[in-house]
């Protein structure tokens, strides 16, 4: 159990049976008054946010969270299958749960899966992935129309804005945290 004095930014606590992470924290205490622990929390499953003020006597459970290293195997429709690289257990995560992460998955990619009560709730991908550009307008040299970027599509179907010199067949690096273009890569 955690008590209120353990609360801090980044701590994960169990509230009403769900895991929450504290994303903002402030201790306050009016003169001669009670200690107040003011928290903004994010539900780690639904993403919903909650603002709550706790007092000294409040207690919190520790969510049963476990991070495991896994490898992406394949997807069958909306089920994405992963294998634990240590014990070879296999699990699947739905497309909906993965959100935009589905666009950055590559066969055999190693990543971290966060489990709550043995159920996967989140994945942490490598920060950078290299993906093939499959659809792009050709680069019109000397184009001075003033647009700095253009939309292109990569092999996974993901659409993003890149500099005009990127063309079909290029490999580009994408930051999986932001989904943004980083650089063109030569392989």
């Amino acid at each position, binding site marked *: 159990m955690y008590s209120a*004095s353990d609360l801090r930014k980044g701590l994960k606590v169990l509230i009403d049976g769900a895991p929450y992470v504290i994303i903002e924290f*402030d*201790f*306050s*205490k*009016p*003169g*001669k*008054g*009670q*200690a*107040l622990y*003011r928290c903004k929390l994010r539900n780690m499953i639904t993403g919903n946010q909650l603002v709550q*003020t706790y007092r000294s006597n409040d207690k919190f459970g520790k969510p049963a969270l476990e991070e495991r290293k896994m490898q992406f195997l394949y997807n069958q429709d909306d089920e994405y299958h992963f294998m634990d690289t240590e014990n070879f257990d296999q699990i699947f995560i739905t497309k909906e749960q993965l959100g935009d992460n589905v666009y950055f998955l590559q066969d055999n990619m190693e990543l971290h899966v966060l489990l709550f009560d043995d159920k996967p709730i989140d994945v942490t991908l490598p920060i950078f992935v290299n993906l093939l550009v499959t659809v792009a307008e050709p680069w019109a040299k000397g184009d001075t129309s003033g647009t700095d970027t253009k939309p292109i599509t990569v092999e996974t179907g993901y659409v993003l804005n890149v500099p005009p010199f990127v063309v079909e067949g290029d490999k580009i690096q994408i930051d999986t945290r932001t989904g943004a273009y980083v650089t063109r890569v030569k392989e």
Partner: protein
Amino acid sequence: MLDLEGLHLRAAFFRAIRRFFEEQDFLEVDTPIRQPLLIPEQNIVPIRSGTHYLQSSPELYMKRLLAGGCERIFQICHCFRQGESGRLHLEEFVMLEWYRLDADYSDLMRDCEELFSFLMREVAGSVLPVRLDSGWERLTVADAFTRYCSVSAAEALETDMFDQLLVEQVEPYLGQSIPTFLYDYPLELASLARPKSGQLDVAERFELYVSGIELANGFSELTDPDLQRKRFEKEYAKMEDERGREKKMPEFFLEDLGRIEQAAGIAMGLDRLFMQLSGRKKLEDAVSFAPEDLDS
């Protein structure tokens, strides 16, 4: 952690505070930092030091000096409160306390006004986010709740929401263009303060706010030892688990209290004051060493 310029400014500011009080014939005193027994306060967790505690405030011994005949005293000292750390809190912090015999809380409010004007004038490089020239706001707790809060102060107290509503709904509005004295606290929130004559449900206690930040807590001292003993008993009764603290009465203090006719005292957080007067935003940026600067 302060840089060289910050250290000089902080030192200039401490010198000016001392000069302010010395010019008014205040005696600078020092009292024990380690104390065998602390004044029972429900919401303060003391830090142990062997068989003693580190002081959470010097008030007990400063009041005994008043009883011993001192008329005007001040002290700048380190105080300690366990578990209080945040943007505006440090477990170890510097307090300025001053006491006046034959005075009440309105005298202390005037002291605050004069002290601020003095510091702004005397310390080169001092800044304040509020104006000092046009009179300070005086707002009773009851009026402040009526004005800014969804429920009355009495209702907030009954539902044990007073502190939270004060912090979340009232404090942000206090001291915004000029400093605010929030005054006349409900009696149960002022264990050591005197009831207001003619209005016995409130105590002559005030807090000073600048930019929504509480800087000082002052009051007309309760000098009736019997009533003070009852208040301490009540305070002890509210301290449930009491983390191994002995529930003893500070008998010397109560005895001395009977020798004081009338007095008033105030505690001001100097780190916070310096933070504001030097235009800093976080307390840890206003002290010589913040907790994370210490070897451990």
